[in-house]
């Protein structure tokens, strides 16, 4: 197991390097620069600023400057937000997204797995259809629709919840972002759980357990649930990264100030270091959680050995 973990870490380094390189050159090959704006700067000032950030040098030099900074844990200054480094901006916005994300993840996991199990145990009954219909609603109602509908319902018609803001993460400010974030994940998790649960319930060892006369709840929770969770776990790894790194929709509608908006705005404004910073964060988390999923696999399924 230890050798497997260290092997995964060693493998992650070249993957991350490729990720950084490709996104760096892609970003820099896009036309425009962070300082092109409607109110043009005097050319001398622009030249000074470009020289300060090495933007007047060839891209390859900029790349090595960036890598050098990165090795010291410095993601560089933001080209858009004055007086902020990317480290500061990420340190400010990532906890917000992570808090929304972790709550959404827990909600999605509980409701999704619950719906999936219920639907699988009552396959092709009205309960199955209504539960899965409800879960499918999460797929067909994208969060950029759900978010305004939530505001319309909870804040404008009923005045139950504040329409936006963060306020340090007090729960009234959390409810709508969590609803908007979790629905599509609920739907996916429910679908996967249902499918694999049906398959597991048809397998031989469940028949044996039934023949031995075990009570139903023990069959479900002690025998069926563990193998049925395998495909769910492999979905949860990437999903967790997606959910924790936030969504631009949630940030825009609810004004929560998470990390999602920074990425989109950074790309649109050519804030090179911001896009790079978020890319590296997401990439690292993705690789990390894929490795965690592999380890969880071995924990759940004793047939898998490393």
């Amino acid at each position, binding site marked *: 197991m230890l050798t497997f973990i260290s092997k995964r870490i060693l493998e992650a380094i070249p*993957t991350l390097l*490729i990720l950084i390189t490709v996104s760096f050159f892609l970003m820099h090959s896009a036309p425009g620069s962070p300082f092109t704006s409607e109110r043009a700067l005097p050319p001398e000032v622009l030249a000074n600023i470009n020289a300060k950030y090495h933007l007047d040098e060839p891209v390859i030099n900029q790349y090595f400057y960036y890598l050098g900074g990165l090795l010291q844990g410095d993601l560089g200054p933001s080209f858009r937000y004055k007086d902020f480094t990317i480290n500061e901006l990420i340190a400010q916005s990532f906890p917000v997204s992570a808090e929304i994300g972790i709550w959404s993840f827990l909600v999605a996991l509980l409701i999704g797995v619950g719906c999936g199990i219920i639907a699988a145990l009552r396959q092709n009954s009205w309960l199955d259809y209504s539960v899965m219909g409800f879960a499918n609603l999460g*797929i067909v109602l994208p969060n*950029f*629709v759900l978010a305004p509908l939530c505001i*319309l319902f909870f804040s404008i018609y009923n005045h139950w919840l504040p329409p936006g803001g963060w306020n340090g993460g007090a729960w009234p400010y959390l409810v709508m972002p969590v609803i908007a974030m979790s629905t599509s994940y609920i739907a996916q998790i429910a679908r996967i759980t249902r499918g694999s649960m049906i398959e597991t319930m048809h397998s031989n060892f469940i028949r044996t357990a039934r023949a031995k006369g075990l009570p139903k709840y023990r069959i479900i929770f002690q025998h069926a649930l563990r193998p049925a969770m395998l495909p769910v776990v492999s979905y949860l790894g990437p999903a967790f990264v997606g959910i924790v790194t936030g969504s631009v929709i949630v940030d825009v509608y609810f004004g929560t100030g998470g990390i999602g908006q920074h990425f989109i705005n950074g*790309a*649109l404004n050519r804030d090179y270091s911001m896009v790079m910073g978020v890319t590296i964060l997401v*990439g690292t988390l993705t690789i990390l959680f894929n490795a965690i999923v592999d380890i969880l696999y071995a924990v759940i399924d004793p047939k898998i050995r490393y």
Partner: protein
Amino acid sequence: MITTKDKIQAVEQFAEKVVEVEGRSLWQDARRRFFSNHAAVTSLIILLLITAIALLGPFFSQWNYDDIDWEALSDISTLGRPNIENSHYFGTDTLGRDIFVRTMQGGQISLLVGIMGSVVAIVIGTLYGAASGYIGGRVDSVMMRFLEILNSFPFMFFVIILMTLFGRHIFLIFVAIGAISWLDMARIVRGQTLSLKNKEYIEAAYACGVSTPKIILRHIVPNVLGIVVVYATLLVPNMILLESFISFLGLGVQEPMTSWGALISEGAQNMEIAIWQLAWPLGFLVVTLFCFNFLGDGLRDALDPKDR
């Protein structure tokens, strides 16, 4: 054996009536199963209807998708309401343009992006997955590693970079979306190929000296087609959603053309005074996505060899 003549005759007569039993192919079986699934067939019919409306609907309105009704423009919240008399069946948007025609035009774009994006993803994904699985060995591990790297990219990044690099063009949207959506497809096809690879007919083809590209195209690809079709129908709604999301960010189709996503994002801004601007495109989008999901489930039940 003692038998009478009339018994033999009876048997012969019976034998004449028996028609030769025809073998049923996988696809015939699948078709039969599919058509007995009411939800899937209904979805298919609704989808065909929506496509027909999206294509033909604009001919039944006096407005064009970029026509501005100056009369309605003066007061959208009352004159812009859905109204049969001035032939704004679904109302108008804030610029006085007819929502009915714009929803239909947006539908054409959304469906086109959904289908074309899936085609791109299927072609790349199937060929990549089949080649990787069939050739195997070092080639396979390099190809899979490449896939893993691509997978760890935040992939909205790709779309946004492509949009900013090459400008906003409708053709580019689905190439971009398709080019990033083939990863799962490739992985699924590879898995299938690995199990097909050792079948006798592949061995036979190999023994006859059929070249590798030909084995992949003629023997592997047709046999993974079932799972590809299922996955493709589930891919289309994702593509439509992705396009909506891109349009929502303002990176999608360019005005005055529109798509369901763009219409929804415009509608969401005015939902307090003119809910119809949100309701109609949203209704069409939701129904279409629902139908594609049911259709995909139906096809999976029909084609999945595990359930037999």
